[in-house]
């Protein structure tokens, strides 16, 4: 075992018991702020020495309380998270910042904040389009968030403080991208499951600790001999939020390596950096509204176009995935959705059109947010791999 070999093991540990670290920090007097998705600018929390802690569901926990506030036919991820909230599993939080990233989350978090009162809550509106006024409005929303965070902590977010926070999170983004680059070789140096554990760990601890963890993992992964095996299929997983290794094992249990992903439990939050602009909030607004890629934002090839071109439209919406496919030498795409997701659901069949245009085989898998819902997918995945094999 090399010196850095604690990395993956530690990531796994945190993954298995996420609240452990923040509870320690809370005991030391730190304040923990929950946030449900990647649209929340956690830099502002870091700048105030608050610890951002991402809220997930738990595919192993039966949902028994959520009906109090949500119907059954509803994003099962949010339903599960909300259920955990009602069961007191998130009681250690000192506050919650929600964002209007998608409709289910907006509605769910408004209900959540109404039923469970935390010392601090804030709701951040996110415009649906990228028109001229959108950025300015969103900036106004960020400034409002800044104000309530300051009021809650009784501290001021200084330029230096925010700059340092942004730099720390940009460093984290860079390190994550470095980690993902280690999946370009064949076989990849790190598996999809391991990557998922690392990402989930990062959303459970302060940014600096996360960056140390990343450095350890990267050096360990580079040196270790017992990495993933070479397998015929190199897959990209596109989807909403895959947050449990049960998701990846369904695929990597077969003759495939997941070498790249594009979903909200994976690379998406780390794809782009926050620009250090003169007004730092401008940089944040630009990254969180414009640069983030989830389909919840309405994108067209040309703003205000009076003549539409579907192909250009697809390129403008999915072009970055095309880059992934080239860069990571992907030979198949799994479009994996935890069901009842409108923003991603409506991308079908458009995104399939796009993959077809690249000549990349793709398969759409839709399942409930439970471990057992994944087992039946195995035959589908293996069948898909056989289809790829025939093409090869």
């Amino acid at each position: 075992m090399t010196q850095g070999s604690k990395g993956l093991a530690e990531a796994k540990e945190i993954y298995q018991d996420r609240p452990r670290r923040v509870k320690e920090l809370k005991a030391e007097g730190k304040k923990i702020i929950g946030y449900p998705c990647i649209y929340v600018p956690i830099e502002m929390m870091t700048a105030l020495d608050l610890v951002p802690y991402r809220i997930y569901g738990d595919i192993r926990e039966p949902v028994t309380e959520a009906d109090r506030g949500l119907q059954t036919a509803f994003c099962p991820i949010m339903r599960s998270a909300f259920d955990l909230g009602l069961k007191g599993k998130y009681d250690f939080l000192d506050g919650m910042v929600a964002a209007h990233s998608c409709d289910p989350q907006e509605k769910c978090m408004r209900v959540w904040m109404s039923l469970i009162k935390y010392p601090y809550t804030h709701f951040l509106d996110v415009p649906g389009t990228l028109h001229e006024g959108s950025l300015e409005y969103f900036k106004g929303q960020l400034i409002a968030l800044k104000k309530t965070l300051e009021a809650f902590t009784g501290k001021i977010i200084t330029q230096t403080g925010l700059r340092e926070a942004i730099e720390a999170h940009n460093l984290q983004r860079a390190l994550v991208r470095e980690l993902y680059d280690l999946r370009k070789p064949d076989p990849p140096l790190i598996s999809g499951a391991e990557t998922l554990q690392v990402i989930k760990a990062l959303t459970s601890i302060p940014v600096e600790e996360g960056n140390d963890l990343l450095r350890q993992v990267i050096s360990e992964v580079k040196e270790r001999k017992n990495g993933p095996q070479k397998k015929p299929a190199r897959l990209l997983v596109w989807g909403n939020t895959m947050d449990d290794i049960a998701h990846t094992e369904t695929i990597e249990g077969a003759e495939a390596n997941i070498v790249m992903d594009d979903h909200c439990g994976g690379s998406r939050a780390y794809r782009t950096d926050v620009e250090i602009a003169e007004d730092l909030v401008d940089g944040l607004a630009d990254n969180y509204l414009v640069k983030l890629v989830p389909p919840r934002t309405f994108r067209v090839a040309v703003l205000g176009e009076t003549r539409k071109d579907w192909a250009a439209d697809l390129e403008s919406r999915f072009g970055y995935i095309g880059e992934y496919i080239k860069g990571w030498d992907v030979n198949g795409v799994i479009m994996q959705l935890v069901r009842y997701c409108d923003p991603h659901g409506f991308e079908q069949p458009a995104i399939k059109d796009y993959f077809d245009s690249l000549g990349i085989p793709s398969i759409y898998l839709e399942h409930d947010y439970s471990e057992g819902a994944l087992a039946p997918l195995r035959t589908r995945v293996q069948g898909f791999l056989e289809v790829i094999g025939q093409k090869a």
Partner: protein
Amino acid sequence: MYPLRAKVDETYARSVEAMKAGKPTVWAMVNWWEGDVILKAMDLETVYPENYSTVCASAGTAESYLNRADADGFPTHLCGYSRNTFGYTSRMIKELGAEIPPEAPMGGMPKPVLLLSSDSVCDARYKWFQALGHYMDIPVWTLELPVPGVQELFMDGVKEQCISFMVEHLREFVAFLERLLGRKIDWDKLDETMKLVEQLSRVWHEVNELRKARPCPMHGRDFWSAMPASLFLAGDLSDTLECYQAMYDEVKSRVDNGMGAIADEKYRVVFAELPPWHSLGFFDRLAERGWNIVIESWNYHPPIPIDLTGIADPLERIARFTFQWSTGYYERALKDGEYLGYMAYPYLVFARDYKCDGAFLHPLITCRSASTHLHYTRELLMRKTSVPSIIIEGDIVDLRLFDPEDALRKAEVFEETMEHYREVRKKEGLDW
């Protein structure tokens, strides 16, 4: 009251004529006046796929469209209205070379020059028009309606930021329309149109205020038949205004003469979401049991009136008007510590102001955004005013889902529940 319903049907016929006459038509999402007033002022014939899907469902053509959308690869869990429209468009474009399908009810929806979506209320309503690009290269414009948090709206400057964002956005939209149509907007006409909308909405609001009377003079069924004229701005607006005024007089005289909408008002009930259109007769059977629907679905009501006089810019009046629709209840919500200030909270206000005995909540299975908040509404009404709710599932396109027999069986039991909570509210010192 029915002339108002007829106005909507007219618009489909008119849009078809318009297309035949080479005039441009628009497919629009219900946008709560934000875009409609402008379309109206620019003489654009507009149809509403959401509304048209209801028509298809009642006419029995929906199923074949749904199957077609399914076959084209759209996930079946998506909004039923959207899948109906995908199927319709697929048939029109892929099979009939942009000709209106012969089986299409009410003359059908002609191929549009513009898809006007709106990001208010749910994601489906803009993702869906974006996805129509799969069939036709039609420009899409998405209207922005900001939805700040309840606490956050009342922070310094936030509300004005929302308004100026909307105004700037609408100015861009007008410029876009002018580019698209190659003609300028008539600002005076826009101003006039908006004035009419303000007036008829105010009258329509007053009509519904009258329903607070005991017994309630107007049943939900009459609301449903009259609502579309104000929501879709169908027909000639000054006619519409007169219709609503006539309606006001009729309802007022009923109040003055103590006339109720039903024979014997035993239960004052608030109804949520779209009704089961195909079996509205069901409400008569409830009426026989003394159920009066005294108020319903806040989102199909006009905004609580605000004073817009003295605001010269019609775009700003539109912005404030629509924004008031979605945030008009926020102030009271904040006082109650409730953060779902628009979808669920208004029902609490209804239950209190209309002194309701119970809530009839009607989730629409394939319309999640219309149903998401209903379970919470149940919780909210019970927690804050001890008003019980009955939840009976239905759907917007699969009409079989709503089972009147079963619903009636539950309604009968629910009467004991309503009786019980009447006592509870008395003990709590509430006056109904």
